[in-house]
Every structure is written in structure tokens, then in C-alpha cells.
């Protein structure tokens, strides 16, 4: 019987055209995506997991197949399994089937197995699509390695099949319990959202193991396995079914069977579809079996006036719309969605804006963005779902027979549905707002900014949802089947939100797009508003056409073929609709023209490929001028006028240029950023423009008199940044802003000579543009490159003088000390002058600032911030004081009399150190909500301040040569300084937590390295994870290993030797020399390991036993497993023999360290013991996080009581 049902069902599906359509669609999706990541279109870059990972590597194949099958495939699972199970109810065949003697088991599982089987067959299309794409001739052979069927097979049996089983089981059970397709869709949303919540909730480091287990799709488990995998491993190994991944799979297969059993037990052969929420009670009517004159009398009916015309229709529209809205509010499912949405929003709010696992204050824009961001996809899904329901409602309920024959024009029906749908979206956004306010209240934050909520949610987001609703109704109007409509919409949404931008490039072609909106407490919505409105008028007018078209083609009557409807749409009655379409098109096209004029005519529009191509051209044309003798800037004097409202800037300046070379110089090469316009240029000794490339902005001036070695001349120039219209993408800091301008010298001032910094650095990109291989940095042995520092090729240390002007309510700031402040002609002027030479690296800021100042040891500490952002000023002041104290005591005196922190808008989130000036993004630290009593919170406003202040030494005193490794002298040493300041300020526990986060960052980033990992001493500028994360950890370790002030002593000598020196600039070789001088022979290996090799450990406490001794003390016996590995640049790790110093600590129950010992531990297992006075609880190897450990989760072990008392 089972077999019979199974084959019948399978045959039915194989006959059904939809099976093949599903397969075709899945095939096409994967095929297309496969080509995309296979590098078919050189202009489109879609890399997952690093450039060095092959497109057909096992990790990518797994990620692609798992994701496509999970998210797109899930719809198919629901469609097929839901259909199979509910079929007998929807087709009313239940009575026929259930009265046959088939057993419940055979009936249900015959159906289920057959539909699951069909689903699996359909899902093979994804694998085939990917294989076809990868073996097609169109992919880029560089992105491919040899074909391995096993990768595909592994993915299917590890992920695709178990996940399909789970999905199937869930929807099987739900179908059987609810017997209502709507509930099934609802559970689909619940399922997605649950995955989303668990993703965000368990993303932190601590929950890694738990999340790996509970993630139903196994993604977290896979991530946990492969997190620290090297490129080599990612390219050559598929996941193995061991450990967490195995347990996860077993757990969820088990859950699947439980769900199947639950569904099975709920089901009984009763005929009717069960409704979950209401029961029908049939009314009885006292029928009269004999003739009785009926009460009907048409003449006695009250006289009514009928009116037909616009006004009536509008009134009807109003009435119908109110009705739609009421119906919606009465809808039980909608109420459930609201309740459930609320739950979701409150749950996710725990993850609000965390940095270093530390929360921020729930300021309104963060709450609004975060909650809307989380809820966005739910609103989209519900919109699609209700659009289908609304359009098909009359037909589904067979009410259309009556309604369609009523004297109401199509557009009244259409717009009433639209209003209902749009009203629903408003309600959902209200929910977001209410939850936002609740969340703020729960967190004790009462500064609700209602206008921000209203503007963000109902000004910006709602419009997109409305456009989407109009599109959804159009699609549902055109298709002949609701589910086909859903499917089309799902595919479209996926395309539009992911690939459309990549493939079509310009926003003009990506439905609903806009240049982007970012709210900042400083700058509000700023200059994002106008282009946003223009774009929405553009898409809105298209939507108007859609609306008119939907209303023209509204399905009405009993025949709804599209051709027929088209015929009706051409009738005279429908003319108004075409007029609307015409108007819509006119607005659409003219708006599009206006946008094009702004983005492509007034501003330059370049795809990233074109941008890269221009850089390639720059290199091809002008590389020949690299290293020709050019003068260097020795002094700058500037007048910079900032016009925040117009978003313009006019600058005039005088550069003093000196020929520091040994050759005469007869021409000066000048480059300027593409956003700036260079006006008048004048050389004090006379010159003429000999060459000008207006595309790239390369100019060569031939000097009337060549500069002899040692000669100086003055270069006088004007330069402007003028904002015209708007650009294709929202640009944050590139130009002056209404409030919060932040520009540095490279953004509008000329530079001298060919600058290698503008070349394409990434070698994969270089290859795409047919440029040869180029080492990412100059080799450390390239002594020619010692002649300039890594910040600027055209200057060493300079004298600085700048006069800034801005509007009266703003303060303008540049490095240096304020000499004078005055107001003329309604402009506020500030004259700054630096009293000692600085690097050629300076900034200009202007904003409506509040100022707070403190004096500390003769140094003026100042914070310029936005009103309302007072939260962490004290932490920043504390950070400045503690770090100034530490660095000036340990390294060298502070060169300035002032430190200023200046807030700038969150369009970028970094802090950056200029001479006595530290611009600090509002997005990182100003609104941090650090809870000092929590063991988890990292005081990152303090930490970032300490890091940036350290740059006043490491960058602004000592700067490295323009060779590999030099960033270590800047970033690693600053990071080291910050960690040392933190170590003095915070508990060992917190530092340990911080270092663990850094270690995790280092290990997972190195696994995504695109080029090759280099040892610390030779790193490239782009390798942030090495210079900050690894650098900080190993320098902190070195300090501990060397003990005392040895390291600081070495650094101090290093600083004194190189501070404020011009060329030749130092390199990491010099740094290492100073360090090695203070390192005993026994630890020289460690310096080598951290600087010159990529060293990793696998340390583990294998065993730990506690024995109470007769004298009341405790003996701890434990064994340590240790392994040291050296990695090569591709990530291939090889164990090496070792006998290294490793610390072991014993802790009591309150996480207090009882004893710390440093042992010399060889590779392999070593048995050790320790005696402590107090009762210990656990043993931790390397508790101070000194070594890079590939798995620090096994570094601690709880002690178990020993069996017998040891006697000595």
C-alpha cells in the first residue's frame, strides 16, 4: 500500500509541469550565480571568502548550495509538501480517500516520502546548475580548480538533504495540525526569523558552541569548524562529519523525526479542513413548509438616490478602503504576526549596536535602524503574502461573482486593496516604532526623538514598502495563479536586493533604489534628503504606471485570460487609465533625465571597474615619473573657507618646496584628487604648464629656472571643492557637510610628484586590468624607499599654518594652536599655527560643537562634541590622561601642549590621529554604554582614546619608511600602548576578554586573507588584522615575557633615536634591533617567532586533578598538551619541535588567580603539578593570552578531586 501511494504521488508530481518549472528556476539561479562568482563578468566582483578561494572550492560550493537550497528551496519544500498533505482537503477529495481502508501510516508517510523525494529531485537542479556554470567556457579559469564531484555530494548529504528533511518535517507537522496554507506561510516566516534571531543572539564569541549546536541549518557548526581554516584548507577540504557538526546534524535529524511523529499523531481521518481559530455554527431557520405571502415588496422599499460619478467612486473607495483596513485588523493571523513581531523586536534588541560585545546607548536612530533592519524582511514577506491574499480574496472566496457585476470601476477596487496593503505596512512600521520606544524605555533611555522615528520610518522606509506593495499587486494581477505570483516576487526580490546593483551598476535601473540614507546625530539626514526624494519621485511615477496598469488589467468576471483583459483595457471606458500611464511615464522619464544629469553630467559616474581602469591608466602613463627627483614640501600656509550650507570649500595656499635631492629639478609634477578643482597655480620663480591630463588630473610645470639642490621656491595655488547636484551614491565625508565637515589634506590639496599610493595594489585586480604583478609594498631591503615615509611621498616634517573660516555657529579646527579668532562679513575665522614641525598630514573640521576642556599637567585636554553626546566624555578624558601619563613616562615627552578630540559624523566609523588633533567618529564611542560592573563590557571609548593618543608618539614622532612592515611602527606600537594603558586601568579578567576577542579576530581574518599572510615584521598596509590584532597581542606578550620595563626601555631608545628625523626613515628591522638588544638569549626565539614567522600554538589542558594534602594545602596535578606550528603564507601549517615558555595559572571559584607559573614545555604531553594554599577550581594554560592559540576554548579545565590522598 505504501509503495502504491508513493509511486502514485511521485508519478503525479512528475506529470506536473510545476516540478520542471521549479527545477528550471533553481537551475538558472545557481547557474547565473555560479557564473557571477566564477568571474564571467570582469566588471562584477562577487567574491565570497577572499580572492584566493577558488569559485569551485568546497567551502563556496557548500555555501552556495546550502543557502540557495535553504532560502529559495524552502519555498519549494513548502509548496510541494504543503500541497501533498493538504491536497485532499483543498480538493475536497478527503471524503473519498479517508473512507478507503488505507492505513494512516501508509497514507501520510507515503505522501510525505514521495513529496520529499520529489523535493530532493528538484533540489538536484542547484547542484547541476553550479556544475554547469563552473564547467562552462565563460568562467575565468583563474578562479577555478579541478572538478571534484565529492564536494557536491558531501554538501548534499551533509546539509541539503538533512535540511530539506527538517524543513519538510516542520511543514508536514504544521500542515497536519493547522490544515491551512496561511498558517504554513506564517510558520515559514517564524522559521526564518527564528534563524535570524539565533544568528544575532549567538554571534558573540561566548555562545559559539551553543550556537553551533542549536542552529537548525548547521551553518554555525560549519562556521565554527572552518572559522580559522587557512586558504589552503578552504580550497581543498570539505567539512567532515565530526564533532559539533556531527552532533548538530544528529540532533536535527532527531528533531525532524520527532516533528514527523507529532504531525502524525495529530492527524486523524476526519473529513473537513480544520480551522484553528473559529468554529462554524450553522444557523437554523424556521422554515415554513406552506405557502405564505412573502414580505418582499419592492415598491415598499425606501427610495434611494443613486449616483454614479467621480465623487461617488471616491466615496466608495474611501468606504472600501476603511473596510479593507478593518478586515485586516480583524484578521487573526495579522494579530499573531503583530504579537510575534513584537516578541522578535524585543528579543533582538539585546544585540543593539554592540562593539566589542559592549552596548551603545539606545539613541533613536540606532534603535530605529536596527529594529527596522531586523523587521524589514518580515514586512517584505508579509507584504507579498497579503498582496496575494488581497488580490485573490474575492475570487478565492467566490465573492467575485457578485462584486464584479457591480457598477464600480476597476480602479476603485484596485485602490481600495492598495490602501489596505499600505495601511498594513504603516501598522507594521508603527509596531517598529512602539517597540523602539519600549526598548528605549526598558533600557532607561528617555530621550525619545519622535521626529527621527517618524522621518526615518514613515519618511524614508515606508515609501520603499509602498513601491514594493504596488509591484506585488501588479504581479498578482497579471499572473493566473497566486503561488506563481509569490514565486516570481521572491525571485525578483532576491535579484533586486542582491545582484541587480552588481550587474546593472546604475541606480536608475535598480527598482526602488536610491543613493542611500544615513542618519547622523550631528548632521541629521543631511544632504541625503533631496536625492532621495528625486529618486522616489522617479520610482513613484513608475509605480503609478504599474498602478494604472494593474487597475486596467484588474481581473474581473468569470474569464480572466490576460489577452481578454488586455482587450477590455483598450475599450473607451478605460481611457483615463492610459492617460495616467502616459503622465506617469512622462514624469518617470523626465525625473530619470534629471537624475542622470545630476549623477552623470554634473558629477562623474564611474563603476568600480571604470574607476580601477583609470587607476591602471594612471600607472601605465605616468609610472615612468616615479622616483624622478621632485622637490619636497617643507612648509604650508593655507586659507580654507568652508561653506557648510552650500557644501563648498575654497582654499588658497602657499607651499614651500625644497629640492632635497642632489640633482637639479626642472619641472614639478602636480596631482590633485578628482573631486577637487585646481585653480590658479604660481611658482615664485616662474613656470609654465607643460603637460596637463585633465582626465587623471596630472600636471607638469616646467620651471623657468631649474631648482638647484638645496633651493627653495614657493608654490601658490587655489583649489576648490564645489558640490553640484547629487551623486550616484550617498557620499559622506568627501565634501563639506551641513554640520560635521571632516576633510584631510589629500582630499583637496595638490601633491607633488608621482604618487604610488594611487596605483592598483590588489594583484587580482591588477591582473583584471592587464597590469603586471607588483609586490603590495616595497621590500624591506629597498633602501631607496627609506627616503620617504609611509604617509607622504612629497614631504618629511613641515611647518604648518592655516586660517580657516566657516559660518558663525560652527567652530572650524585644524592642527596647531589657535592664534586668533575673529568675525568679518558674517564669517567666523580661526587662525591656527603649529610651533613644531609635523608630518604632511592634517585635517580640517567644522561643526556646531560643544566644548569641554580640562587641564592636566600643563596640557589642555579638549573635547569638541555634539550636544547630547556627553555620555563618555569622562572616559575619554580619563583615557587621555592615563595614556599621556604612561607614554610620556615610558617612551618620550609629549610634543604638544594640547590634545583635542573632535567628533565627526558616523558616515565613517574610525578615529584618526593628526598632530594634537584626533577626529573621532560619533559612531564609535560617543554613545557607548559601558557597564563597568559587567565582566563582559570593554571600555572602548577609553581604549580607542588611548590608541589614538599613542599615535602622537607612533606616527607623529616616529614614522616608518615606505616599505613593508612599516605600519607596525605606527599601528602595532599604538595598539601596544593602548593595551598597556588598559592593563593598568582594568582587571586581568577584562583584558583577557579583550585579548580573546582580538585573537578571534586575528584567527578568522587570516583565514580570509586574500593575498598572503606575512610575518609581522613584513606586513602590508592592508593587513589590518595583523598590525592591530596580532600586533597588539604579541607585543603585550613580549612585554610580559621580557618582564619589567625592558621592552619599554627599548622602545624609548628607539623613539629617541628616530623621533622627528627626516630620511632615511626607520623600518621594523630597526625596531627589532632595539628589541633584541634587551632580549636575553633564552627568549630570542620568541622575538623571531612573533616578528619573523607566523607562529601558532595548540595548547590544551588535557587533565587536571586536585588532591588535598595533609597540611591543608592543595596539590594540583595536570598535564598540558602543547604543539607549536609555523604557517607559510598560504596558510599551510606545519608542526615544529618546540620547547617554549608557557604559563599555567590556577584559579579559585571566584576566578581569582591563585598561582601563575611559567614552564618550559616541550611539544606533546607534559605532566606537571603545583601546590596552592587555597582550594582551586580550575587550571588554565596561558591565562594571560600571550600566545596565539588556534583553539583557546580548551585552554582551561575544571579540576576533578583525586581519588586518594597523596602521601610523600
Amino acid at each position, binding site marked *: 500500500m505504501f509503495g502504491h501511494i508513493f509511486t502514485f504521488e511521485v508519478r503525479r508530481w512528475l506529470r506536473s509541469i510545476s516540478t520542471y518549472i521549479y527545477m528550471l528556476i533553481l537551475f538558472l539561479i545557481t547557474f547565473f550565480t555560479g557564473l557571477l562568482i566564477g568571474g564571467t563578468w570582469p566588471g562584477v566582483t562577487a567574491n565570497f571568502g577572499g580572492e584566493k578561494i577558488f569559485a569551485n572550492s568546497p567551502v563556496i560550493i557548500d555555501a552556495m548550495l546550502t543557502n540557495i537550497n535553504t532560502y529559495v528551496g524552502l519555498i519549494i519544500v513548502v509548496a510541494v509538501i504543503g500541497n501533498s498533505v493538504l491536497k485532499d482537503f483543498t480538493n475536497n477529495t478527503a471524503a473519498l480517500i479517508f473512507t478507503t481502508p488505507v492505513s494512516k501510516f501508509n497514507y501520510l508517510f507515503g505522501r510525505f516520502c514521495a513529496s520529499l523525494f520529489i523535493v530532493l529531485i528538484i533540489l538536484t537542479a542547484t547542484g547541476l546548475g553550479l556544475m554547469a556554470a563552473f564547467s562552462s567556457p565563460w568562467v575565468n579559469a583563474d578562479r577555478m580548480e579541478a572538478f571534484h564531484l565529492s564536494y557536491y555530494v558531501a554538501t548534499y548529504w551533509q546539509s541539503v538533504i538533512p535540511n530539506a528533511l527538517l524543513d519538510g518535517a516542520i511543514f508536514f507537522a504544521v500542515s497536519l495540525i493547522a490544515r491551512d496554507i496561511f498558517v504554513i506561510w506564517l510558520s515559514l516566516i517564524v522559521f526564518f526569523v527564528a534563524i535570524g534571531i539565533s544568528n544575532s543572539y549567538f554571534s558573540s564569541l561566548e555562545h559559539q558552541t551553543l550556537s553551533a549546536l542549536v542552529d537548525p541549518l548547521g551553518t554555525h557548526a560549519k562556521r565554527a569548524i572552518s572559522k580559522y581554516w587557512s586558504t589552503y584548507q578552504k580550497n581543498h577540504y570539505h567539512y567532515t562529519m565530526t564533532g559539533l557538526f556531527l552532533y548538530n546534524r544528529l540532533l536535527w535529524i532527531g528533531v525532524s523525526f520527532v516533528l514527523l511523529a507529532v504531525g502524525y499523531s495529530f492527524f486523524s481521518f476526519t473529513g473537513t479542513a480544520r480551522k484553528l481559530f*473559529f468554529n*462554524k*455554527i*450553522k*444557523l*437554523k*431557520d424556521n*422554515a*415554513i*413548509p*406552506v*405557502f*405564505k*405571502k*412573502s*414580505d*418582499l*415588496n*419592492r*415598491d*415598499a*422599499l*425606501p*427610495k*434611494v*438616490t*443613486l*449616483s*454614479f460619478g467621480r*465623487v*461617488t467612486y471616491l*466615496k*466608495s473607495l474611501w*468606504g*472600501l478602503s476603511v*473596510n479593507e483596513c478593518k*478586515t485586516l485588523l*480583524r484578521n487573526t493571523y495579522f494579530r499573531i504576526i503583530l504579537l510575534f513581531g513584537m516578541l522578535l523586536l524585543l528579543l533582538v534588541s539585546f544585540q543593539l549596536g554592540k562593539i566589542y560585545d559592549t552596548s551603545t546607548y539606545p539613541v533613536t536612530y540606532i534603535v530605529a535602524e536596527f529594529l527596522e533592519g531586523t523587521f524589514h524582511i518580515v514586512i517584505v514577506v508579509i507584504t507579498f503574502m497579503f498582496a496575494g491574499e488581497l488580490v485573490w*480574496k474575492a475570487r478565492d*472566496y*467566490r*465573492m467575485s*461573482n*457578485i*462584486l*464584479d*457585476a*457591480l*457598477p*464600480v*470601476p476597476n480602479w*476603485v477596487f484596485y485602490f481600495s486593496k492598495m490602501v489596505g496593503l499600505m495601511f498594513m505596512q504603516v501598522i507594521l512600521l508603527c509596531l517598529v516604532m512602539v517597540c523602539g520606544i519600549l526598548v528605549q524605555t526598558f533600557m532607561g533611555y528617555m530621550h525619545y526623538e519622535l521626529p527621527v522615528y517618524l522621518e526615518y520610518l514613515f519618511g524614508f522606509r515606508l515609501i520603499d514598502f509602498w513601491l514594493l506593495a504596488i509591484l506585488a499587486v501588479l504581479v498578482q494581477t497579471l499572473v493566473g495563479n497566486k503561488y506563481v505570483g509569490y514565486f516570481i516576487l521572491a525571485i525578483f526580490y532576491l535579484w533586486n536586493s542582491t545582484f541587480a546593483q552588481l550587474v546593472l551598476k546604475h541606480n536608475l535601473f535598480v527598482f526602488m533604489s536610491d543613493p542611500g540614507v544615513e542618519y547622523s546625530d550631528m548632521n541629521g539626514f543631511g544632504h541625503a534628503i533631496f536625492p532621495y526624494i528625486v529618486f522616489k519621485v522617479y520610482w513613484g511615477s513608475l509605480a503609478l504606471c504599474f498602478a494604472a496598469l494593474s487597475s486596467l488589467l484588474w481581473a*474581473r*468576471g*468569470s*474569464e480572466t*485570460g490576460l489577452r*481578454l483583459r488586455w482587450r477590455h483595457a483598450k*475599450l473607451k*471606458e478605460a481611457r483615463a487609465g492610459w492617460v495616467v500611464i502616459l503622465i506617469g511615464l512622462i514624469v518617470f522619464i523626465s525625473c530619470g533625465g534629471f537624475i542622470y544629469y545630476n549623477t552623470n553630467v554634473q558629477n562623474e559616474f564611474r563603476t568600480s571597474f571604470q574607476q580601477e581602469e583609470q587607476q591602471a591608466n594612471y600607472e601605465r602613463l605616468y609610472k615612468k615619473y616615479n622616483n624622478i627627483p621632485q622637490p619636497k614640501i617643507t612648509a604650508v600656509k593655507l586659507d580654507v573657507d568652508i561653506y557648510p550650507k552650500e557644501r563648498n570649500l575654497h582654499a588658497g595656499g602657499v607651499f614651500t618646496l625644497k629640492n632635497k635631492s642632489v640633482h637639479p629639478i626642472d619641472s614639478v609634477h602636480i596631482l590633485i584628487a578628482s573631486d577637487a578643482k585646481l585653480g590658479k597655480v604660481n611658482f615664485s620663480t616662474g613656470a609654465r604648464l607643460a603637460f596637463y591630463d585633465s582626465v587623471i588630473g596630472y600636471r607638469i610645470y616646467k620651471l623657468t629656472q631649474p631648482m638647484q639642490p638645496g633651493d627653495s621656491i614657493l608654490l601658490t595655488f587655489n583649489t576648490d571643492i564645489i558640490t553640484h547636484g547629487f551623486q550616484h551614491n550617498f557620499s559622506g565625508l568627501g565634501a563639506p557637510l551641513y554640520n560635521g565637515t571632516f576633510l584631510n589634506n589629500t582630499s583637496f590639496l595638490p601633491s607633488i610628484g608621482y604618487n604610488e599610493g594611487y596605483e592598483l595594489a590588489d594583484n587580482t585586480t591588477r591582473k583584471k586590468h592587464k597590469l603586471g604583478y607588483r609586490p603590495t609594498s616595497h621590500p624591506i631591503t629597498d633602501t631607496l624607499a627609506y627616503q620617504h615615509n609611509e604617509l607622504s611621498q612629497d614631504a618629511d616634517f613641515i611647518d604648518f599654518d592655516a586660517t580657516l573660516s566657516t559660518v558663525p555657529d560652527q567652530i572650524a579646527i585644524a592642527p596647531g594652536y589657535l592664534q586668533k579668532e575673529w568675525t568679518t562679513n558674517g564669517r567666523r575665522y580661526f587662525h591656527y599655527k603649529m610651533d613644531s614641525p609635523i608630518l604632511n598630514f592634517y585635517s580640517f573640521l567644522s561643526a556646531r560643537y560643544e566644548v569641554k576642556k580640562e587641564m592636566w599637567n600643563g596640557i589642555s585636554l579638549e573635547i569638541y562634541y555634539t550636544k547630547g553626546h556627553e555620555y563618555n566624555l569622562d572616559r575619554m578624558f580619563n583615557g587621555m590622561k592615563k595614556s599621556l601619563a604612561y607614554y610620556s613616562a615610558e617612551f618620550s615627552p609629549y610634543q604638544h601642549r594640547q590634545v583635542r578630540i573632535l567628533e565627526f559624523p558616523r558616515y565613517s566609523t574610525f578615529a584618526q590621529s593628526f598632530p594634537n588633533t584626533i577626529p573621532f567618529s560619533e559612531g564609535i564611542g560617543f554613545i557607548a554604554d559601558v557597564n563597568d560592573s559587567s565582566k563582559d563590557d570593554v571600555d572602548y571609548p577609553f581604549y580607542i582614546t588611548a590608541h589614538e593618543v599613542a599615535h602622537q608618539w607612533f606616527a607623529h614622532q616616529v614614522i616608518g619608511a615606505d616599505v613593508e612592515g612599516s605600519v607596525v611602527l605606527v599601528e602595532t606600537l599604538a595598539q601596544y600602548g593602548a593595551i598597556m594603558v588598559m592593563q593598568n586601568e582594568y582587571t586581568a579578567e577584562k583584558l583577557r576578554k579583550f585579548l580573546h576577542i582580538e585573537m578571534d579576530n586575528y584567527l578568522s581574518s587570516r583565514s580570509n586573507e586574500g593575498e598572503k599572510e606575512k610575518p609581522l615584521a613584513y606586513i602590508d598596509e592592508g593587513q589590518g588584522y595583523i598590525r592591530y590584532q596580532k600586533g597588539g597581542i604579541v607585543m603585550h606578550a613580549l612585554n610580559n615575557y621580557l618582564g619589567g620595563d625592558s621592552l619599554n626601555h627599548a622602545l624609548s631608545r628607539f623613539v629617541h633615536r628616530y623621533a622627528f628625523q627626516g630620511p632615511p626613515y626607520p623600518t621594523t628591522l630597526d625596531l627589532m634591533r632595539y628589541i633584541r638588544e634587551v632580549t636575553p638569549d633564552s627568549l630570542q626565539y620568541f622575538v623571531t617567532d612573533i616578528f619573523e614567522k607566523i607562529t601558532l600554538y595548540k595548547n590544551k589542558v588535557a587533565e587536571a586533578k586536585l588532591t588535598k594534602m595533609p597540611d591543608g594545602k592543595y596539590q594540583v596535578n595536570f598535564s598540558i598538551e602543547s604543539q607549536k606550528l609555523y604557517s607559510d603564507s598560504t596558510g599551510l601549517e606545519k608542526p615544529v619541535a618546540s620547547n617554549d615558555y608557557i604559563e599555567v595559572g590556577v584559579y579559585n571559584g571566584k576566578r581569582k588567580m591563585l598561582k601563575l607559573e611559567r614552564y618550559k614545555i616541550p611539544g606533546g604531553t607534559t605532566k606537571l603539578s603545583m601546590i596552592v594554599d587555597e582550594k582551586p577550581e580550575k587550571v588554565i594554560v596561558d591565562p594571560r593570552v600571550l600566545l596565539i592559540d588556534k583553539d583557546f576554548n580548551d585552554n582551561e579545565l575544571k579540576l576533578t578531586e583525586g581519588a586518594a590522598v597523596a602521601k610523600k
Partner: protein
Amino acid sequence: MLQIKNLSKTYPNGVQALRDVSLDISNGMFGLLGPNGAGKSTLMRTIATLQDADSGSIMFGGIDVMKQKHELRKVLGYLPQEFGVYPKVSAEEMLHYIARLKGIDNAKERKELVTALLQQVNLYNHKSKFLGGYSGGMKQRFGIAQALIGNPKLIIVDEPTAGLDPAERLRFNNLLSEIGENIIVILSTHIVDDVSELCNDMAIIANGQVVQRGNPESLIAAVQNKIWSRRIKKADVTAYQEKYKVILSKLSGGDVMIHIFSEENPGDGFAMERAGLEDIYFANIA
């Protein structure tokens, strides 16, 4: 006056639902009698603007129905053969909703009308109950009430009694009979009694064609004295069918009662039968 001229309709699946149908219908209750699948509903839906014919025309007064659907809808009352209801909507709300759509935009008038209609069709006591819970007869009465909204000049009632129990049917027909004289009411049905009880003009439609047309009484008069009946054994039915023009055979106490058409007395045990509309119907669709 409703004039249907040369109406033909073939569905995409090849079923020819209407073949050159022409009918002139004037005020009063017009019965459209025919078996299932004869094309009645197609014709009704076409008149009710819900679908188009392939050829032919329908004129109602000055309205060309197929080209001026909206105009016709203004004067139309339509009770479809089959209609569903939204869940959780009461009869009163639904009538209000439809009244508004029919162009009654004065709320007070609407309310009075809805109340009066609910009373007239005896649903007033159940007005705030959800329609989903109504019995078949109640639902059809609701259907009539909604069709009467807005002084329709043309009412189309498509198979209203199908599926009603005898008492409900009786009650419903009582209701229909009051709809009045001054407008056109087209009642389609496959139940002969509905037509004989209610209509003074009728047509019989079979296989998409009009096969009889006229006043029920005169149609009956034309065959009066020509219908003969006899009770026979089941086994003999075939033999009689070969021998006579059998128009009707129905079970009767275990045997079969047959009616035949014959100008003269056929003898053979036949007795003259009083002709009824049933005989006309079966004679025409056989």
C-alpha cells in the same frame, strides 16, 4: 426590453456553450429552463457583464451590454449561481458594502434600505450573524436582497433553487414571485416547477441553443391531448423506446411510468395524460 441577437460562445477547451442564441425578453419574470451544461449560466454571465461572447450582441434599452458594461451594471441586480462569502462578515455589513458600491452614497438612505431589505427577506433577526454560518436558503435570500439594491431594471437570478431543500425552495420562490412586474427578471433553472410556478414567459435551452420559446401555458396547450402514459416493467423499457416516441420515463413504485408523444391514441394500454411543462422540457432536451 432585452434583445439578445445571434450570441455564440466557444470556450478555449472547445466546448461550444452558446450557438447563435437570439431572444427578446420583455418585462416580467422570464424562465430560462435547461439541463446542466446547456449554456444557461454562460448566457446569464454574459448578460451580467461577467464575460464576453465571441459574436452576437446584447442590447438592454439603449445599452450595448458587451461594450458598455459599466452602464449595464448600474441597472443590474445579479444573483449568481454560486457565490461565497468572506469569513467574519455579517449580512448587514455585506449589504452595506454592496449598497455603497451600487452607488448609494448617502449613509442614512443606505441604512434604511438595508434594514428594509433585511426585514423583507426575513433575515433581520440574523442580520449581525456572520454570513458563513447561514443555511442555504438564508444565503439565497441574502442573495436576493443584495440583487435588489439600487432599483435594478434587470435582475438575473441564476439557478437559485439548486441545492435547497423543498421547504427552502418553496419559501424562496414565494420571495421571487414578489419581485414585480415592471422590470425584467431572468430566472435560470433546471427545475421545471420553478418555471411553471413563477414565469409567464420562458425559453428552453439545450446544447447552447434555444429549442422552445413562449408562454408556458400556450406551450402546454400545444401538446395537450397528445401525451399518453402507461406503467410498464423495467425490462420492457427498451422495447417501448423503440416503438414509441418516449419523452419521459420515471420510476414509479418499482415499475416504470412512461410518457409518450402521439397525435392519436396509441392504444396498447396507454391512457391520455394531462400535459405539463415537464413533458415539454423532456421532449425538447431528449
